[in-house]
């Protein structure tokens, strides 16, 4: 750094403090996120001040009301045109309020409400010492199998902290797809990841597996975050700014008034390429794309099933949102560099997820690999680099999250003495025992498989069509081949449920409270409606398909 540059830095720092303006924050436009964060803080206070007996009700109430209010705020913002004509950058360039952001926030909030419902379910686990309990540990800090734990169970403790944790995670997810600079992106990433790591660890049953899942998720997630941060540093070195708009300008070569202090490194393509690769890697980790998918099966299996369902749906939505914004807003000028790489990632993700899923014997692991395959299908839409590509991905994410939450909610119902019976062999003959539950699960599986008249088909068609129009015909062919492979294992589960004789010692299907029932019913309804009459939602998605820059 030259002497004059140092001098300019020093003199800048010595400017009178009064020259820093107070940041201008558009509170109304950020209200969805602010409501959720506020509710999460209230949730923490409830933990501190409300008597143990009434905490559960207070927490559920606060969470549902906050999420519903935030959702109304999103709808109100969209209705007053922030998704289309009034789309702009808020909060001093940190947050974008535009179509994709609002659409994804709406999806995340709906998934969050259904998530709260499944979190709050207290009829499935047998009562412990006369207390209704949920899927979460009596006292997460108690060592599994210890006397403290037994005492906690006996006292009827429950981990009501899961609700504020969920709200914090949701608030991070709301910011993630709307982050308009790399630092906000990173903060949002951490805000939603840390609560999820914790939530994974607090299963009531199979606690060691749950903790193991959390540690794996945390370690790998921490590495991914570190990579992302490193990438952000390199991109800053490249562009001299963390703002998406500025980086995009530097990539396009249309930047004016370069900071002389950064002129030395600025425009260095090595920094750009490595930085992009690292940031995208972090996002692909969250999405669960091959080869960054290793955590998915273990975490999906070990985490409490309601958490898995929520995480599988909402994390994907948030992470794909951020990925789309990064690739479409910041790096369209770099398209010819990232497209081949993303092609390869999409191909191995689709094929890898579908092929490995065939050998799975645990329903949660199976759904984990299936989610990997789906990440591949969505990536095909991302690669399209067209407005159709954006709207198809938005639609797919909306459709997929409801199917996922519904499917995992059904998994929580099938139980034997050891809790949830997730081994596939135990699902044999379920169709004979509980035709309704099996039929509902079959609907979800058919949607995953992309059979026409379900939302899965409409979504798959949308992304493949966008990909084909974007010149990725070969990707579509790989996509249909992996769909065919994937269909095999979905059908295998259906065969098991309907065409196998029930085993005498097989699991029973617990009758859930209206909460889980609502979540499942919403999943089925959305799956069928989006399958038969998707037009309204496709419209919504295509109106929302334009990023603000």
């Amino acid at each position, binding site marked *: 750094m030259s002497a004059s540059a140092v001098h300019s830095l020093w003199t800048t720092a010595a400017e009178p403090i009064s020259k820093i303006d107070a940041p201008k924050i558009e509170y109304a436009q950020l209200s969805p996120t602010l409501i959720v964060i506020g509710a999460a803080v209230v949730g923490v206070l409830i933990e501190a001040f409300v008597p143990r007996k009434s905490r559960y009700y207070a927490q559920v109430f606060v969470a549902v009301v906050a999420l519903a209010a935030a959702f109304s705020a999103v709808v109100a913002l969209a209705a007053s045109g922030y998704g289309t004509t009034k789309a702009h950058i808020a909060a001093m360039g940190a947050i974008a309020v535009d179509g994709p952001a609002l659409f994804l926030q709406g999806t995340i909030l709906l998934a969050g409400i259904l998530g709260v419902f499944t979190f709050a379910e207290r009829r499935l686990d047998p009562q412990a010492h006369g207390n209704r309990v949920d899927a979460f540990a009596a006292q997460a800090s108690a060592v599994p199998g210890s006397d403290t734990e037994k005492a906690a169970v006996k006292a009827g403790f429950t981990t009501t902290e899961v609700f504020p944790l969920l709200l914090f995670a949701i608030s991070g997810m709301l910011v993630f797809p709307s982050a308009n600079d790399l630092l906000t992106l990173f903060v949002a990433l951490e805000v939603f990841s840390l609560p999820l790591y914790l939530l994974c660890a607090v299963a009531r049953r199979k606690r060691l597996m749950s903790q193991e899942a959390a540690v794996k998720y945390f370690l790998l997630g921490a590495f991914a975050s570190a990579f992302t941060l490193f990438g952000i540093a390199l991109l800053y070195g490249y562009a001299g700014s963390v703002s998406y708009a500025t980086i995009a300008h530097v990539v396009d070569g249309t930047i004016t008034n370069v900071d002389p202090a950064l002129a030395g490194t600025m425009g260095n393509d090595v920094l750009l390429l490595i930085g992009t690769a690292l940031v995208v890697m972090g996002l692909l980790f969250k999405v669960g794309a091959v080869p960054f998918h290793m955590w998915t099966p273990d975490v999906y299996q070990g985490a409490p099933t309601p958490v898995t369902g929520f995480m599988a749906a909402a994390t994907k939505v948030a992470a794909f949102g951020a990925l789309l914004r990064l690739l479409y807003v910041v790096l369209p000028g770099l398209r010819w560099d990232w497209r081949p790489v993303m092609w390869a990632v999409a191909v191995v993700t689709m094929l890898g997820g579908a092929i490995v899923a065939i050998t799975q014997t645990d329903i949660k692991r199976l759904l984990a690999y299936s989610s990997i395959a789906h990440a591949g299908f969505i990536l095909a839409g991302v690669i399209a680099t067209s407005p159709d590509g954006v709207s198809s991905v938005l639609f797919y994410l909306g459709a997929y999250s409801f199917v996922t939450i519904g499917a995992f909610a059904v998994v929580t119902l099938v139980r034997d003495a050891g809790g949830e019976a997730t081994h596939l062999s135990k699902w044999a003959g379920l169709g004979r025992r509980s035709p309704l539950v099996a039929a509902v699960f079959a609907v979800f599986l058919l949607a995953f498989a992309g059979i*026409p008249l379900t939302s899965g088909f409409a979504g798959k068609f949308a992304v493949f069509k966008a990909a084909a129009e974007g010149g990725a015909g070969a990707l579509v062919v790989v996509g249909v081949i992996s*769909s065919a492979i994937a269909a095999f294992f979905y059908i295998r589960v259906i065969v098991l449920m*309907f065409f196998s*004789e029930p085993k005498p010692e097989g699991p029973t299907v617990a009758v859930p409270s209206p909460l889980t029932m609502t979540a499942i019913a919403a999943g089925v309804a959305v799956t069928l409606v989006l399958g038969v009459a998707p*037009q309204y939602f496709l419209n919504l998605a*295509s109106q929302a398909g334009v990023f603000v820059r």
Partner: protein
Amino acid sequence: MSFPLLTATAVLPALGAIATAAVPAARRVAAKWLALLVSLGTLALAAVTLARFDPDGARYQLTESHAWIPDFGVRYQLGVDGIGVALVALTALLMPFVILAGWHDADPHETGSRRWRPTQGFFALILAVEAMVIISFEATDVFLFYIFFEAMLIPMYFLIGGFGDRAHEHGDEAAATQRSYAAVKFLLYNLVGGLIMLAAVIGLYVVAGSFSLQEIVHARADGSLHMATSTERWLFLGFFFAFAVKAPLWPLHTWLPNAMGEATAPVAVLITAVVDKVGTFAMLRFCLQLFPEASKWATPAILVLALISIVYGALLAVGQRDIKRLVAYASISHFGFIILGIFAMTTQGQSGATLYMVNHGISTAALMLVAGFLISRRGSRLIADYGGVQKVAPVLAGTFLIGGLATLSLPGLAPFVSEFLVLVGTFTRYPVVGIIATFGIVLAALYTLVLYQRTMTGPVKAEVAEMPDLRVRELLVVAPLIALLIFLGVYPKPITDIVNPAVKQTMSDVQKKDPQPEVEAAK
């Protein structure tokens, strides 16, 4: 707006399926009657459709068109030409017989859950298949067609996997395993075909910007839509693959014997007489019209495959020891004839092929349903387990013989007319192919007559000595089918009148003319 007759024909069985599924567990019999009534109502609607259809009128009639998913360029667009209306009528006609023949096939024989309602499920699934098949015969939007072409696999899959021959079920784990194997094989073959078609459907949209059959055909005809030769060929192959799996054409046929062997006889009829027709129908409607050049390009290869299907299917039928599998291989042979007729690209050939679809539906239904009655009496599908049945159950044996004779295309019965037309139509353009195909008929005589001889004639086997003859319900199923076979054998004009204009239209789309007979000039 006039009454949406085509929609009604498809919606009635769909609603019937939902209603049937909703019948309480204790009221099984009500579910059966409901299903039968719905299928008869659908038949009535199909009859009205047939009556309203004017063979010399517009290409597509009774059309309906509504916006459905504008974002995908998809319209809910229905319309029938002569070929479509004939097949809708065939489907609606066969359903009451299928339901009546399967009257007791799904009675619960074990106590499952209170909510387990196999009977309701069975009849609801049959009606669901009917609705989806009918709408795919009526769709003039490629996407709409594709949706139901794929979706019908699911109810079909549950019908094959969920309901087997009653005689086999008691304590027979192996039969259940084989059945679910057959169901999975059916679904996977067809799903793979369908997914490859999906890629082609998307490709077609990218190239043509529309899913409307008529729009694309018009645009291609007036030159406003140009398709590169290689693109057209790839798209054609994508479509054809799916239809060839469904039809089925050798070497994609292997799912059919499994599926027909393991399914109950009415479901087997549903597969071969109704669902598979969608494949051959779609070749005529979509492959030839959308991709005329590619169709001509692929003709030689397809003719060879069809010939192999004819001869190979017939040869394997001769070697079968299982009655239902024998009928399945015979069907493969017959589908070879249908495809041969379609791709011979002559008017007689295509008229014959369409007529063949209808006649094959009726004759296979007759043969298979009687075979089903026979099998349900003895509890075995093996030919060797029978002998001398005609002495104890003469009516059963007699109807079985007529069904068999129809299968081997005896003159005077309906299939003869269509097979003759196909052979003549093929011969005028490809004499060698026509000659080889004729061997299929010889082999058909062999496998049918040997089947009859081994099961029905000879000394009465002890196990069949007590076999009751056809009951009233069973006669009600068989008699009308046989009457139809004889009627259409003597007087096929009602169908050919409807079909011929549509076939001429298709021929002009492919820009093919019938070869003119060469008359040696007088010296």
